[in-house]
């Protein structure tokens, strides 16, 4: 288990670089070529949005970039380290140290409180003492407006609150890269704006890169770079 403290990525070095990513899903005749040669560089302290029609491969790309899935072809570097062909253990460690995820659904552990859910990534990384973990969980929950509900069970929170806990959890280990799949999809406008403002502020302060899949044009408009996908490729 690494106790390495995240080091800000130099502005010159991309947080993530992907070259010629291909991925097909399904078996036999129903197999579909979902990603058809994705090339991408994500720089520190930048927010990126990806938009496109349903089924164009946005989420599939996100899971490849987040090392949750393996590409059929192509390469991925995280902070200069080639991870696309790394072992499962190395990819898992890279996820723990460098990547935060916010999924379309919150995926909180229902048996745990909000704070305990946020502490889960920290416990795995093992870089903080229990008191520091608790303190950071409370801080992050405060940032997403849930400071008063830190000890509530995940099941005792509303859908929007659960999604905000998931966002706090994604920030637990100060990841260099935050991958978000419709992060505000379950939130109302006010909460969407609050969460997006928070993410953008963190980007500026800590140098995180954020790649966000969204159908919300207003949020997409506010990101530093807007990417559009169609048929498994970026289009201009």
């Amino acid at each position: 288990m690494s106790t390495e403290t995240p080091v800000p990525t130099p502005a010159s070095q991309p947080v993530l670089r992907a070259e010629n990513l291909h991925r097909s899903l399904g078996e036999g005749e129903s197999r579909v070529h979902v990603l058809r040669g994705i090339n991408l560089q994500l720089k520190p302290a930048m927010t990126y949005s990806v938009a496109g029609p349903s089924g164009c491969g946005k989420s599939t790309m996100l899971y490849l970039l987040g090392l949750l899935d393996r590409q059929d072809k192509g390469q991925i570097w995280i902070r200069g380290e080639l991870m696309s062909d790394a072992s499962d253990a190395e990819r898992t460690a890279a996820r723990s140290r460098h990547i935060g995820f916010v999924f379309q659904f919150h995926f909180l552990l229902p048996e745990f409180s909000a704070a305990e859910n946020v502490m889960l990534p920290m416990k795995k990384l093992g870089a903080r003492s229990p008191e520091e973990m608790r303190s950071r969980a409370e801080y992050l929950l405060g940032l997403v407006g849930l400071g008063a509900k830190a000890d509530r069970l995940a099941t005792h929170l509303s859908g929007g609150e659960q999604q905000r806990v998931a966002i706090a959890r994604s920030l637990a280990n100060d990841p260099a890269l935050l991958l978000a799949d419709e992060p505000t999809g379950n939130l109302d406008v006010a909460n969407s704006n609050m969460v997006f403002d928070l993410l953008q502020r963190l980007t500026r302060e800590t140098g995180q890169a954020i790649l966000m899949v969204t159908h919300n044009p207003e949020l997409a408009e506010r990101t530093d770079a807007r990417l559009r996908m169609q048929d498994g490729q970026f289009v201009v």
Partner: protein
Amino acid sequence: MLMSLAGIVFGVGFFIVTQAQTSGFEKFYIDTIIGADSPIRIEDRFQLPGVAIKGAGGEGEETDFYTKTDSNRKYTRGIEYPNKLRAAVEDFSDVTAVSEVLQGDARAISSFSEELANVLGIRIKDHLQVTDIQNQIKWGSIDNFRFNPSSVLLSIGLAERLQLQIGDYMLFEYAGETRRYKVVGIFETGISQIDKSRVFMQLGEARALFKKPFGQAFFQIGVRNVEQAGLLAERLEEALNHNVVPWQERERSWLQVFSVLRISSAITVSTIILISGLGMFNTLAMLVMEKTREIAILRSIGYTRQDISRIFLWQGVLVLIAGTVCGWAFGAGVTLAISKLPIKIRGIFTADSFVVNWDINHYIWAAVVAGITVMIASYIPARRAAALEPGTIIRGTSI
């Protein structure tokens, strides 16, 4: 999971109870037969023919392989040169005492009836050291027997059949000659076969009754460690050229019956644990299916396959620990309760309640059986959980 836990508790508990009973009766039987007939008996002298078969090579040359031809032994009834043999036997450090015994059948006659009796001529001082006769006396006194050459100790069954009591006189008839003895003690070994025919009289009297002034006796041997009697018997036989029979060989048939019963009950009861294991496997497998999203999220935030596997194994370990500890307590409680249950057993031994054996090994083996079952039942679902690909699961909720 509660049903699996209950299954483990009952499985472990019943495993302990059945083992405590079967081994309890077995141990009681062993104590009884050793108490009645001593751990080792040295019987007939044998002579080896002095021939050994030596292996020959292909060209007829000699080899290093040879074997003795023990099956060609020639036996002479009884021990030979008892004093010298006693001295030789007592040289073995594991031997605690030697009792010379002359055995024969004679007709026992009372005022009421006649019975065939199995008479054992002994020196009471020696015999007390190799058997448990002191504690088998129900009425009368060993001292009266010791100081009165014309006295006998009667087994309880024989005394009942002859309707004799302490102080009564009786006759023994052998080869047309009759001798008169006083009953000074009545004993019970617990083994019905012995208790209906055995009589102890002093060795000199037995030699006079059976007209065997010397020879034809056997030795009963006391040992330091009855469990090692078999090994000691082998050494004695090799050194003394006499047939030496340890209790393990003498009572082989009954010991095998007990052994089969013990193994059979262990297998039967283990099925309860196995079925609980199957239930647990089912529960954990369902849990893995229900928790795939949670597993995926844990994997996405840096938890390794081993971490995921450990979560499910840990659930198994918790059930195992709780089930085993509760099973131990349950087993000990039922064993204690059963030991108080009245039951009248007469035959190969005499008991008036269930005999149980408190042995830590039963608890260890119950835990081992439960441990193996639970770990296998947990390992497969845990491995399945660890093998889940987070991307595949999360993709199931979005495209």
